């Protein structure tokens, strides 16, 4: 799906035209390439009250070969800013952030990164100013994300008590090209069971030795998820309905995975997935519930069949399969479940009340399972991505004007790519990310819809 406009305004002639006319200039986003540096150029790291987490971040960046600076280089640029406000006590402390980040934005490189680290507002107890300042960070990040240009993004990492040592994978994700289309988002990092790994043996192949199942893997976002999980080292099981078998086989073969043809709404779908993964590949570590359909109609005009089929495929099947997958002895301890929700599930969409029901339902499911003490004890994480406007075969069929509208109404002024959704899922699937569960991350370039 070619975004002709973005190509034009990034050509030599197009740049001039767009500049004179004040047209938006969507930037070519920095995307992850295996083996490339985490981020090119120096990263400014600072914080309030000694920045208790800034020290860990400085160390991990040093370990990753990133140049860390504590003040702006004279006459130079920075590629990222990480500011630790976890020790902020009152809104007055926010001045630290302004003083550090404000000037840095003027010299932030294209596809630069702003990461604000704070403590969870939920844990402020009855300290009202504390709750206020912790919540302020979200407002700042969402505004900065809108202020940034040239493919730069701003995101928030909120650390729950006991999660301080588990932030590495998340900091890395937001700095890297893996998060190219994730903008203005917040993620909570919490504590993990003792003994769980938070350091990947190989950050370029963080899923090595893992077995991952992807439903709806024949095309579009699902195929991209399979590609990215395999690239990150996982053995993949590609699941789709028999009618999609031809495309499914291609995805499996190019990634050295296996196919499993089934309808996710079949009562035994979960059992067949577990059986296939364990028999053929010895284990099951990652499940990505991506299969989904649309049967759009205004609620006033829709019928029971359209309603039921969407709710069945997109939500009921996931609830049913999870019963088997999350039963003891199925998904391995320390495993990961990722659901593919949608911006429609957050913002709603005209004519998609059934689809929104299913996608919002997945968010409810993720919140509930993320809070499960049993899953926490077994080290299993359950998260969701909510894609915004993604350039796929499906969005390629939207009428031109609507499509252009969908593409531009976000802070990055462009549609995302299937790989952007896949990268976020692959990050959720990392063992080093064990402290992140019950989270919903939008991959939408900070769309104004549902913001």
């Amino acid at each position, binding site marked *: 799906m070619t975004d002709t406009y973005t190509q034009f305004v990034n050509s030599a002639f197009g740049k001039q035209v767009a500049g004179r006319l004040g047209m938006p200039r969507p930037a070519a986003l920095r995307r992850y390439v295996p083996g490339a540096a985490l981020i090119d150029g120096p990263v400014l790291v600072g914080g309030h009250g000694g920045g208790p987490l800034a020290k860990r971040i400085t160390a991990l960046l040093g370990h990753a070969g990133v140049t860390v600076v504590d003040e702006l280089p004279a006459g130079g640029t920075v590629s990222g800013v990480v500011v630790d406000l976890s020790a902020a006590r009152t809104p007055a402390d926010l001045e630290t952030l302004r003083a550090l980040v404000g000037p840095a934005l003027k010299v932030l490189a294209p596809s630069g990164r702003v990461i604000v680290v704070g403590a969870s507002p939920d844990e402020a107890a009855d300290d009202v100013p504390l709750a206020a300042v912790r919540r302020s960070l979200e407002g700042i990040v969402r505004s900065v994300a809108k202020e940034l240009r040239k493919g730069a993004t701003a995101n928030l990492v909120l650390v729950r008590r006991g999660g301080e040592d588990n932030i590495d994978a998340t900091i890395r994700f937001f700095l890297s090209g893996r998060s190219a289309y994730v903008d203005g988002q917040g993620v909570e990092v919490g504590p993990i069971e003792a003994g769980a790994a938070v350091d990947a043996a190989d950050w370029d192949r963080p899923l090595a030795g893992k077995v991952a199942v992807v439903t709806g893997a024949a095309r579009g976002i699902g195929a991209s998820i399979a590609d990215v999980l395999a690239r990150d080292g996982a053995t993949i099981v*590609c699941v789709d309905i028999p*009618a999609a078998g*031809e495309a*499914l*086989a291609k995805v499996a073969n190019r990634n050295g995975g296996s196919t499993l043809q089934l309808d996710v709404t079949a009562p035994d779908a979960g059992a067949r997935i577990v059986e296939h993964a364990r028999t053929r590949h010895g284990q099951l570590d990652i499940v990505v519930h991506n299969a989904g359909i649309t049967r759009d109609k205004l609620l006033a005009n829709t019928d029971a069949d359209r309603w039921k089929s969407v709710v069945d495929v997109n939500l009921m099947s996931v609830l049913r399969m999870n019963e088997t997958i999350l039963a003891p002895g199925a998904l391995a301890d320390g495993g990961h479940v990722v659901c593919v929700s949608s911006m429609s599930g957050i913002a709603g969409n005209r004519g998609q009340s059934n689809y929104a029901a299913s996608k919002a339902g997945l968010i409810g499911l993720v919140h509930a399972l993320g809070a499960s003490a049993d899953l926490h004890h077994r080290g299993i994480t359950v998260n969701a991505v909510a894609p915004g406007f993604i350039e796929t075969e499906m969005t390629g069929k939207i009428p031109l004007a609507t499509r252009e509208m969908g593409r531009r109404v976000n802070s990055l002024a462009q549609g995302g790519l299937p790989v952007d959704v896949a990268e976020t899922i692959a990050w959720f699937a990392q063992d080093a990310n064990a402290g992140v569960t019950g989270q919903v991350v939008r991959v939408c370039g900070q769309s104004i819809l549902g913001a």
Partner: protein
Amino acid sequence: MAAPRKSTPTVRRAAVLGGNRIPFARSNGAYAKASNQDMLTATIDGLVARHGIAGERLGEVAGGAVLKHSRDFNLTREAVLGSALDPTTPAYDVQQACGTGLETAILVANKITLGQIESGAAGGTDTASDAPIAVNEGLRETLLAANRARTTGQRLKALTGLRPGHLVPEIPKNLEPRTGLSMGEHMALTTKEWGITREDQDELAALSHRHLAAAYERGFFDDLVTSYLGLSRDNNLRADSTTEKLAKLSPAFGKGDGATMTAGNSTPLTDGASMVLLGSDDWAAEHRLTPLAYFVDSETAAVDYVHGAEGLLMAPAYALPRLLARAGMTLQDFDYYEIHEAFAATVLCTLKAWEDPDFCKGRLGLDAPIGAIDRSKLNVNGSSLAAGHPFAATGGRIVASLAKQLHEKGAGSRGLISICAAGGQGVMAILEGA
């Protein structure tokens, strides 16, 4: 100096590990523009994906086609090269008419049994749509004569032999070269000889459709079929087929009032391809694949249909007693029977012959008739009348389906495969559930 290597044959079981086929399509339909190589490549790719063996070097791939272009002399090897298998996987073609698919599986299984290879794939493909059309025989002879000429004069003289009639191409015909009769016409003779009724044929055909439809409905083919060119089920399948509907069709083969064979109880021309994956127990374990069934034994027979001693498609009737004698089994010892439905009458004639004391004594030299089978064990998931019959692809379809049935039935269960073929041949095999 190293000791010379000893190559002692080991005899072991060859397992059927799984299979794949594309849905079969009535000719000049969904696959009208697909070549044998396209279909065979897609089928191998589906097999590779299902078993997660991309990039793997198999011991060999054996395949074939009945209707074949001369350019497809290395069809199976070309398909392997275009597939996700390791390009160092060797391959060869086999051609034994409709027996091709089963014969390839027997060949690969035998090599595994002898310890010559650890793994292999076997199957076949056929298209009646993308059929080879040759130049007119007169034109071909004239052009060859011109090619042999040494001088321009000789060449011109040879080319004066060209005639307008040479423009008419040679189109492949479904005829026996030695009798000039089509397979259906041959079968009609046998059908009449055995007195097989129209009703019985239609009933068998309707049952084939119902069984196949039910198998699709319960997901039996989820791990046996991979969609192709927009088709995810065999498009010859009529789930609502009934004997009443079939009774309305006019006879297509045979003459006069006694003609009973129609388009409904005969297989249509079909396009498609199939492949099965075979391996030793060790290879299966290394690749975490579950054996579904083992090859027990096989037997191929041929009959003299040219001089009228036997019907064209009756060879399996002769293969069976030889096979049973070696296996120490009776016909009634099987859990499933897969008798290829070239025509409904083929199945019925064969079954009737085995029940007939005169035939069994006179033709097969047996003291007692082989006897009847429990019909509820026959073609339980449908057969060629419903699925269609792309000649060389039928064997792979049957081997994979039967192996799965036997695995579901349990270890030690037994299944019999019978496939009749042009040229008066018949290929049979016994599989045992793993």
